[in-house]
């Protein structure tokens, strides 16, 4: 699971008011090279929850992203590369996503999160 996906996922357990962002428990991180596409990054920038991305990338061991961001940073090639790396090249291969309110863990195996809710969570 890459952080682009993580930025879209939330815990929809019954009664949870804010299930985003999910916390990350890391067991295995893998880095996978992805072709750099500037247009895509510019397009995504407006949609990404930046704080969630920074937090998540730090949990995954990448500390290069600035705490805050603004669109003028998109003019910097260095920033774009860091954004690219964090968003697309870091993979949680094994671990879990954790509901920020209930602590409930959604396992991640072979890079695939299992987000199925139990019957009492629906």
């Amino acid at each position, binding site marked *: 699971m890459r952080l682009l996906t993580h930025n879209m*996922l*939330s815990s*929809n357990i019954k009664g949870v008011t804010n299930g985003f962002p999910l916390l990350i428990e890391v067991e295995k991180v893998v880095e996978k090279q992805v072709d750099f596409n500037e247009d895509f990054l510019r397009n995504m920038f407006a949609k990404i929850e930046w704080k969630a991305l920074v937090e998540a990338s730090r949990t995954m061991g990448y500390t290069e992203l600035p705490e805050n961001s603004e669109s003028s940073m998109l003019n910097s090639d260095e920033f774009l590369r860091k954004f690219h790396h964090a968003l697309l090249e870091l993979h949680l291969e094994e671990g879990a996503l954790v509901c920020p309110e209930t602590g409930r863990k959604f396992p991640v195996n*072979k890079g695939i999160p*299992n987000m199925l809710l139990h019957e009492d969570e629906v």
Partner: protein
Amino acid sequence: MVGSCIGVSSTCSFGTTLQWGPGLHTFISRGHIIDRNASVQVLNRTDNNSRKDIGIGIGIGIGKRVYFTAVSGGGRKMQTVVNAAAVETLQKGIAEFYDESSGIWENIWGDHMHHGFYEPDSSVSLSDHRSAQIRMIEEALRFASISDDPMQKPRQIVDVGCGIGGSSRYLARKYEARCQGITLSPVQAQRAQALAASQGLDDKVSFQVADALNQPFEDGQFNLVWSMESGEHMPDKTKFVNELARVAAPGGTIIIVTWCHRDLSPSEESLSPEEKELLNKICDAFFLPAWCSTADYVKLLESLSLQDIKAADWSENVAPFWPAVIKSALTWKGITSLLRSGWKTIKGALAMPLMIEGYNKGLIKFAIITCRKPVS
């Protein structure tokens, strides 16, 4: 199946719907068909029926079966208990069915687990089917007026009930978009991701094990919400459609391609007993909950204030598909694959003539329903 109903005005018969009236209903079922129908029937009655005599019950799910007792007198408790046990049973059934049969389907049909689109009354050879399955995707996109224009084409897509990701990969490639796929089957999700990696699409498509009735996404994420032949598995159509609408971005498009039963005429309250019996047999074999009509979907979309709602009946365009599936099952490759697979898959295969019967009788419709989410 063993069933007995004791009550003032209740009837109970094998394989068909139960009539719940006031009184004490002691009902114990050990039949696969009747479990699901009974539980879904309770769901439907609560949704569609103004009568308030749904009972309070205690349900015990053991393995694939639901044993439950109902006492009428009002209240929603019965529904909750039966619903949870039955839905989890249904979900497990779906997941296991696809875990088991996905390999054999892929072997014979490639990575698209949906009907092909044909000219009506055409006779087709097996080699046409792959391109017909692609055509189905293209016809659906065209029907929904999805633009190829670089400024307007979809950029984030969700494939609801993605199978092994055939649609996800096709759409991601076609629009150079990103696609998320969700499926109940862990086997399918793994296979989908592996296929994506082998096709160089690993960075464009991602798969999650998740429930379409509780999509794990934040609101408004997707320009295109795609449900290709997965709607028939959803036990709660209202929730299913609600979730599709929730995750659609403002201005985004929803495309649902699914099996429905025929629309009811204004004078009809329900399908005939014979029609229901045929559907029940099919439901049992393919792990499908109760069917609804195309008109029901349209009503649901209207209730959510979605716009540009369009629906069409494509039954004639898929009719050549089932005889061809049967033909392929009867080949040496087909038979040996089936024999190597599990009972669930074989049962599914044996039900294929029922699908043909359903189409021929005008009972089963292959429908497309599309709409747009308003911009604000």
